[in-house]
């Protein structure tokens, strides 16, 4: 049984060991003959039985003989029988069993519907994308052959009927998670028994419908440990039986079956055409080979720059709210719905005092030029843009060019009460120098005709926690945000059919400016390094935002704006007991 909790390093920051065939093979050899461990008693439902599973297409024919509740023999496609250990668990009329194949790096997970004899076979093997520790899978639909009876016509099928659900799960191992199934191809999970830093992560997933009440779910922790999880969900009983296969962060081998008890978190909206229940919305990549599927690997694809490279790139090109014309101009498609900047700050002089942070003096020359100085230092002239999406609430942003970490301030000022919140982006963070870091600053503004805030401050909020909101940036560029923990923003991408597909996540922070007006960010850590800051108006269902990004093309600060729709709410407040503020 794996040791919990894991080391105090976030999942996306852990340098997972590149395991080779010999290391993986040695670990598998130790358990292939005995089968998976289990905290709950294994089922003996299969003991003494012999079954033959036939799968469709190029799938295997598997002839099993279960000699005990943890021993079996298997003949694949009529080949020589091998002996292996296995473990089985039963949930209502469904039997889940799993085993490895001794001498190989692969095994099977099988779910049999004992009423219909329909079966789903999941072949699992170590041999991932570039890292052998990542478990690959291929799913075969099939059935258990019955002597003298025709094969059932129906199959378990990929479906979007599970999309939008969410569960809290507690395994019999004590492992607790929040599992959000907001996509048809990905899922988002929060390890409540992990570091306790309340960050959620994402992995490619499969959703196979057995019937309206039962589903098979899989998740592979790609970009992380590569661990594979498969479980059967009993929606009405809120129970699960499953298996877990992989190497954890300490390279300890995990192979176990589990039972779990769940709590319903809710159902959010789906956006496919009414009547469309199809799954598998993402087309398989061409020529990808066995088990290939579309997987988002942001750490692999992002620019990774040193501090010196960042300095050179920033010196070469800084673009602040520049016209969007081609590479390096910022996210061109993300401001199609943007409102024009305003000159409401032009001609004003004011000071922003951040609690425990800098004192920023401003002299604003025009609608796009201001002078700033930090802590009484030298004045600098810079380009800025400002918007007033709600009367009296101004959002503006600018770079602090002379700062060693190339800071950018994205600021929301409430002119009616003098409160200010700043998401202070900066570069030269410890992992990748071009990846943005961010600190949240609360403060006050002093200026003519602006009320004194006194001790009043904006405050962090959990009013967005568990919410899902769609964002349409441009034709064919829509996403959905899922605020899955008090410190996580997850984003999902719509497919052409309205299904939600790829999903990723990063740190987030959420500040209430006024009723129905929130200032939040998402930080693309280990994923392009962008800091996205948006002021969300829940009455107009429109946001006003600023993106801060550094790549090989330079440093940019650019406008972001999208139209919003409510997509629903997961009931997760009870899992995050900290108070607001």
């Amino acid at each position, binding site marked *: 049984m794996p040791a919990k909790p894991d080391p105090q390093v976030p999942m996306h920051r852990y340098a997972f060991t590149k395991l080779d065939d010999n290391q993986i093979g040695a670990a598998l050899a130790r358990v292939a003959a005995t089968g998976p461990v289990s905290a709950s008693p294994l089922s003996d439902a299969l003991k003494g039985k012999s079954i033959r599973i036939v799968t469709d297409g190029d799938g295997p024919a598997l002839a099993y003989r279960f000699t005990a509740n943890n021993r079996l023999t298997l003949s694949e496609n009529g080949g020589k029988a091998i002996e292996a250990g296995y473990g089985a668990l039963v949930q209502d009329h469904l039997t889940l069993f799993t085993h490895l194949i001794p001498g190989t790096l692969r095994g099977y997970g099988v779910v049999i519907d004992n009423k219909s004899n329909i079966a789903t076979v999941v072949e699992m093997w170590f041999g991932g994308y570039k890292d052998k520790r990542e478990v690959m899978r291929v799913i075969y639909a099939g059935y258990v052959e019955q002597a003298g009876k025709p094969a059932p016509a129906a199959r378990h099928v990929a479906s979007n009927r599970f999309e939008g659900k969410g569960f809290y799960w507690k395994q019999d191992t004590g492992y607790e998670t929040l599992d959000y199934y907001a996509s048809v*191809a990905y899922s988002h999970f929060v390890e409540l028994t992990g570091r306790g830093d309340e960050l959620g992560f994402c992995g490619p997933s499969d959703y196979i419908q057995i019937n309206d009440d039962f589903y098979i779910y899989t998740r592979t922790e790609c970009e992380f440990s590569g661990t594979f999880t498969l479980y059967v969900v009993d929606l009405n009983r809120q129970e699960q039986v499953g298996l877990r296969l992989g190497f954890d962060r300490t390279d300890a081998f995990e192979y176990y079956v589990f039972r779990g008890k769940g709590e319903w978190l809710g159902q959010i909206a789906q956006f496919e055409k009414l009547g469309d229940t199809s799954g598998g919305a*993402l*087309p398989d*990549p061409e020529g990808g080979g066995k088990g290939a599927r*579309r997987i*988002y690997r*942001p750490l692999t*694809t992002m620019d990774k720059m040193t501090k010196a490279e960042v300095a050179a790139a920033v010196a070469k090109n800084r673009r602040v709210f520049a016209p969007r014309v*081609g*590479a390096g*101009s*910022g*996210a*061109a*498609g*993300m401001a199609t719905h943007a409102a024009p900047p305003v000159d409401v700050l032009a001609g004003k002089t004011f000071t922003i005092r951040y609690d425990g942070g800098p004192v920023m003096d401003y002299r604003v020359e025009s609608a796009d030029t201001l002078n700033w100085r930090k802590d009484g230092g030298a004045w600098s002239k810079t380009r800025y843009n400002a918007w007033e999406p709600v009367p009296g609430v101004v959002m503006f942003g600018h770079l602090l060019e002379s700062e060693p970490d190339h800071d950018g301030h994205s600021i929301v000022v409430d002119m009616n009460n003098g409160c200010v919140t700043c998401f202070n982006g900066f570069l030269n963070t410890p992992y990748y120098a071009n990846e943005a870091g961010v600190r949240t600053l609360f403060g006050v503004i002093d200026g003519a005709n602006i009320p004194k805030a006194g001790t009043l401050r904006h405050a962090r909020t959990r009013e967005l926690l568990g919410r899902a909101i769609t964002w349409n*940036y441009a*034709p*064919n*560029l829509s*996403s959905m945000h899922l605020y899955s923990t008090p410190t996580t923003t997850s*984003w999902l*991408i719509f*497919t*052409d059919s309205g299904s939600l*597909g*790829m999903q*990723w996540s990063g740190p987030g922070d959420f500040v209430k400016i006024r009723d129905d007006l929130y200032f939040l960010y998402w930080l*693309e850590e280990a*994923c*392009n390094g*962008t800091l996205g800051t948006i002021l969300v108006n829940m009455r107009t269902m429109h946001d006003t935002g600023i*993106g801060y990004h550094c790549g090989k093309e330079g440093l940019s600060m650019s406008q972001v704006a999208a139209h919003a729709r409510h997509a629903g709410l997961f009931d997760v407040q009870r899992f995050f007991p900290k108070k607001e503020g």
Partner: protein
Amino acid sequence: MTDNRESTRRTFLKGSAVLAAPLAMAMPVAAMAADDRAVRLQRLEDEAAIRALHQDWLRRVNAREADMAGLFVNASAARCLDSAVCGVASAPGAAQGDRIELAADGKRATGRFLCLIETESRMAPDSTLAQMALAQGGGVSRDQTSRRVRADYVKTGDRWAIAAIELAEV
């Protein structure tokens, strides 16, 4: 700058009308009837060949076949569509408005076809969202507009080929 192709098309259409009239006046009645039938038959055969050529072109465009060899007079002429065009279909009810005009020499022709032009463009991978959309097999914007396809044809030997294709606003 002048439009040479337009000038050429107008010139040969005018020429065809001029050439047709004297032929009709000079022939004896019986000979004229026989020749007229032959001319009409040839005209019908040419029109049918051009329509088949047009349909073949539509099929290859919609199948995204790179090889248009054999349909055009040369490789340069075959590069007639913007790379964003991914489909060309006859517009609903367009058949009645489609026209093929043969030149009097029977060696050139012009076709006009009302079509729906489908264009496709991949979004630039300039944001995380766009990169993810592309990675999942999406990120493609499609648009459909009505256009008049104007095609010039030439006949070499007994075979028709496309000399030029232009898309014009309706």
